[in-house]
């Protein structure tokens, strides 16, 4: 026989799943939201997305090659593209190029590669980038272009987001300000101001359906976040009408984007289903608290960021149910 026999321990077959398949699966799931953002923000959205992805991939390549001196480059696994895409989805479409590039550098350089690259980062890299930008460039990061200006970029006219309206209503204790909010159907379809990826809840839900169908993620984290936010904000709206109704909370800001795509990031979410539920509920509670009482109108990214830090602890305390431990 020409070939040597191969010996190894079982199993001798594999499901054929791979890191690439999962990463590109998530990217495909983000395409509906990307199309909506192109439709709503036009040129600006295209520039921000392309710059962000290109910068992330470039930084990952440069860092692996010249700083870590690794032979194997990991840019083909799709994780850098995904980080770039998610980062772009968290930015307003009129953000200047240089800020985007700084964001990408922080996301990949600080958020991911300092910890050793894929699989080692404690925080979601795209979130690290976004939060860095939000704190460093608060003005640029919170002026949102009015939808429908398809050919303008940094020169676009801006307007308030539904979330800042909601935040103002709570601070003034005046429920009438809420009347400025667009109706929930237009929020659902994506007709309001905001970051690239968060404008259309419908497109994001389509992506969620795809992820579930491909078994890339399980329902636990997104559903627990959405349900918690809905219930908690419902209670608050009931006690104080200055607090917007729960459907607004679900449809506005980065809640959908965060719940479906950011919080479910493999590397930075808990391993067991019970742990995932605890994580999701905590994110939901934190989000509502920050939105209601915090300095920033948006709480999703901070909530996920804080809970990322708790993931090792959650993993330690919330174990999957062992076989045979069922009470008889």
């Amino acid at each position: 026989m020409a070939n040597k026999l191969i010996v190894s321990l079982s199993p001798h077959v594999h499901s054929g799943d791979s890191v690439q398949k999962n990463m590109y699966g998530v990217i495909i799931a983000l395409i509906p939201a990307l199309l909506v953002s192109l439709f709503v923000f036009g040129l600006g959205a295209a520039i921000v997305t392309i710059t962000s992805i290109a910068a992330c991939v470039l930084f990952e390549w440069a860092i692996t090659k010249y700083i870590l001196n690794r032979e194997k480059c990991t840019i083909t696994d799709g994780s850098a593209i995904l980080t770039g895409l998610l980062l772009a989805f968290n930015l307003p479409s009129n953000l200047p190029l240089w800020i985007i590039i700084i964001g990408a550098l922080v996301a990949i350089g600080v958020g991911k590669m300092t910890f050793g690259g894929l699989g080692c980062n404690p925080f979601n890299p795209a979130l690290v980038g976004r939060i860095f930008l939000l704190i460093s460039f608060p003005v640029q990061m919170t002026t949102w272009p009015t939808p429908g200006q398809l050919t303008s970029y940094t020169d676009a006219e801006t307007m308030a987001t539904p979330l800042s309206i909601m935040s103002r209503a709570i601070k003034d204790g005046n429920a009438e300000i809420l009347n400025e909010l667009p109706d929930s159907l237009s929020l659902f379809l994506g007709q309001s101001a905001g970051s690239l990826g968060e404008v259309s809840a419908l497109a994001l839900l389509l992506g969620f359906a795809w992820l579930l169908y491909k078994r890339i993620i399980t329902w636990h984290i997104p559903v627990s976040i959405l349900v918690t936010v809905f219930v908690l904000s419902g209670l608050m709206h009931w006690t104080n009408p200055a607090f917007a109704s729960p459907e607004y909370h679900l449809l506005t800001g980065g809640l959908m984007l965060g719940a479906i795509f950011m919080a479910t990031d493999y590397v930075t979410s808990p391993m067991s289903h019970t742990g995932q539920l605890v994580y999701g509920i905590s994110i939901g509670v934190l989000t509502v608290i920050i939105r209601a009482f915090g300095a920033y109108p948006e709480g999703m990214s901070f909530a996920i960021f804080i809970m990322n830090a708790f993931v090792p602890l959650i993993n330690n305390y919330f174990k999957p149910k062992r076989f045979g431990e069922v009470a008889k």
Partner: protein
Amino acid sequence: MNLILVAVIALGAIGLIAAVVLYLASKKFAVFEDPRIAQVAEVLPQANCGGCGYPGCSGFAGACVKAADAGSLEGKLCPVGGAPVMEKVAAILGLEAVASEPKLAVVRCNGSCENRPRIVQYDGAISCRVAHATSGGETLCSFGCLGCGDCVKACKFDAIKMNPETGLPEVDAEKCTACGACAKACPRGIIEIRPKGRVVKGEARRVWVGCVNKDKGAIAAKACAVSCIGCGKCQKVCKKEAITIENNLAYIDPAKCIACGLCFNECPKHAIHASFAVPVPRPKVVKPAEEPAAPKAAAKPVAAASEGVSAEPVQKSASKEVPAAEKQQQQ
């Protein structure tokens, strides 16, 4: 002013109370430890390698003190520090150090890619212990080195390295402290901690069997060109009765071996290794001794091969050891 005074008095009082409580607690809950243990631990290398057989250096220090109370330090050796450290320990404990030989790790397998043909390919996790559990290994020899480098990972002194050409680990005699971590890590017990040997002309002389194959001669010979086949020729030639043969495998007792090199020259399979250049006996002596050995060595093709190049490999393997010996001389 009053405020400052109150603060000073209050803080002072708290401090005083805490001090008293701490003082009482330290008296009440004091654990007596023999001060000599700390003294001994201080002179130890603090590598915490466990080579002495105790959990870390402080464990060894405790054991030394206990042994000293019993009267003797016999059997206690810090392999890393060696004799100088043990002398210091003995001095602290008011005893005489028991002289012990310097040792080092010896790899008892020479099944390089050339000597031991690979018949299957291992495709699992890179770990000797996993490979050991998977199958007999990539070759027909189910006793020899698996080449995944568990010993290299175990060494804390960077003294053992994989040679990519032979696929076998090599020990750096200068760096090796004989802590035994590699010997423990090897799932097949190939690595042995042996005395460095008698020093002659500045080089330590030792002779060992570089094989651990316990299969019958025919099977062992088929698996590897340099396997010990248990033919017993070395045992016959040894004048000090240092060689025993058990389970088709020769073993040289380092306590009895005088490193004369007779067995090295006698072995038909070149399975015996020496750390020094063994003087090659005059061809007249070698040839008759070598030729009748060939038919006895069970597997014909391999025996024939070793016969064909009989004189050459002796020199070759001996000269291979020369650089190491030279290194030691320089040292």
